[in-house]
């Protein structure tokens, strides 16, 4: 479903942040990418999102070369991918409900769909009762759950979670990972980046890709090796 073919990313100062990475991610897989800060995890994801172009090599989403998607079509492509960030990135002036509804409005969904889907997704992340709260009224864990609800409400093919538990305490971290597993079980491919050992251990025998200095140094099932 997602293919990185000999992808290298070099910044203007000549530093290679991603070196000759080749990867295949299958549909409905749950893949974790681990590595220290600066290992190239985020850059890899940014290339998948089309926010950055590889210096050499290609990134494919199904049969589409992401780097060849026209600017005007980019927003349609992005609707097929849900994203969750370490810093949540909710719209501060909107309630939990409106944040989730915004993703549906942006995708051009009808009012009926919004009215029926948003409460459903908020229930899925256990926030049914807090739909009217603004982000600053929610805890970090709750904000991240709103972000997940927003990311999955349009039923994307892939959910990218970039260090989603980086700002959370262990209890909230556990909740978020549970929700991500649930989303994966419902049929969405999940790509998770983290440098938290407990997170990886809690995922059991799922696939873990380890990156170091821009290269993939290990790609296998289970375990946290750094």
């Amino acid at each position, binding site marked *: 479903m997602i293919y990185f073919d000999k992808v290298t990313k070099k910044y203007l100062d000549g530093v290679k942040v991603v070196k000759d990475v080749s990867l295949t991610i299958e549909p409905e897989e749950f893949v974790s990418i681990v590595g220290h800060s600066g290992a190239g995890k985020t850059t890899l994801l940014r290339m998948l*999102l089309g*926010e950055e172009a590889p210096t050499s090599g290609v990134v494919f989403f199904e049969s589409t070369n992401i780097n060849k998607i026209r600017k*005007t079509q980019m*927003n*349609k492509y*992005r*609707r097929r991918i849900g*994203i969750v960030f370490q810093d949540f*990135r*909710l*719209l*501060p*002036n*909107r309630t939990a409900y409106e944040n989730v509804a*915004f*993703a549906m*409005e*942006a*995708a*051009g969904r*009808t*009012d009926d769909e919004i009215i029926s889907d948003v409460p459903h997704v908020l229930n899925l992340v256990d926030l049914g009762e807090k739909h009217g709260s603004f982000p600053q009224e929610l805890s970090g864990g709750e904000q991240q759950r709103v972000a997940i609800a*927003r990311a999955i409400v*349009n039923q994307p093919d892939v959910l990218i979670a970039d260090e989603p538990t980086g700002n959370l305490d262990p209890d909230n971290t556990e909740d978020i990972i549970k929700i991500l597993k649930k989303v994966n079980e419902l049929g969405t491919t999940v790509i998770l980046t983290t440098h938290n050992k407990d997170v990886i251990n809690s995922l059991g025998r799922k696939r873990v890709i380890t990156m170091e200095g821009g290269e993939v140094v290990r790609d296998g099932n289970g375990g946290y090796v750094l």
Partner: protein
Amino acid sequence: MITTTIRRIIKTGFTNFWRNGIVSISSILMMTVTLSVVIFLLLSSNLFSLTLDRVKNEIDINVYATTEATPEEVLKLKQDLEFLPEVDTIEYISREQVLSNFREKHRNDEQIIQALEALEESPLGAVLNIKAKEISQYSGIAKFLESKTVLSDEDPNIVEKVNYAQNKIMIEGLNKTINAVHKFGIALVIILIVVSILITFNTIRLVIFISREEIKVMRLVGANNTFIRGPFIFEGIIYGVMASFITIILSYPVLFWVNPFIEKIFLIDLLSYFFSNIFMFFGVSLVVGTFLGIISSILAVRKYLKV
């Protein structure tokens, strides 16, 4: 689909406007300042041109004919003068009229009336009052009259006196003042408008700068540019509309307060002028405000849409 999008854009615009409270108010106030400057300039340019018209109307050249000149000769001179392109109107005042005007003016002065009675014939000749189209053209007309009197082969000369020389200093002084005020006025107008537009633009840019992270998030969630830009533009329109209402409403007490002074100095009732043209003033500020709001929003958002 399109109506849904427009409806959502308008709804989001209103929501953002409401929830951004203080920021929205400051934008409206900045815009009100700009629109007030526009209204002020409109009013003062009107005041200036009305005053100018009045002063212009009071200026003329008087040609005093000799007592020997027959009405036909004076009317012939009038005809000649009317051929000049500079001349706007010429008023002919006959000897009889001049005399009765003079009597009227001095009717309380026994001595003069008696002296006048003693004379067999009126000592006053006919008069031509000449008005030029532009103040600067009086000197041309005066030159023509001079050539008529000095170089005239008609004998005897029918022109006793032209009062241009007396008025000359005043006319030329006024002419210079008008030119200076005009140039200075245009420069002032341009500076004021540019400054206030820049201030409004910067305020709106600041408002959108606050939202730059939101814009990024919207893009990542898959919103297209129209959907992101729309609410900001709509907010810009709200600023413009609200600011023009406030400007017009605030203009009333301010004008009410300054009008007596203006009436004393310029002899013009600005308040009634404002009221008889209130829709024009409202329309102008509405158009300027809305345009400014839209343009500022488009330019400010554009910067953050390049992800």
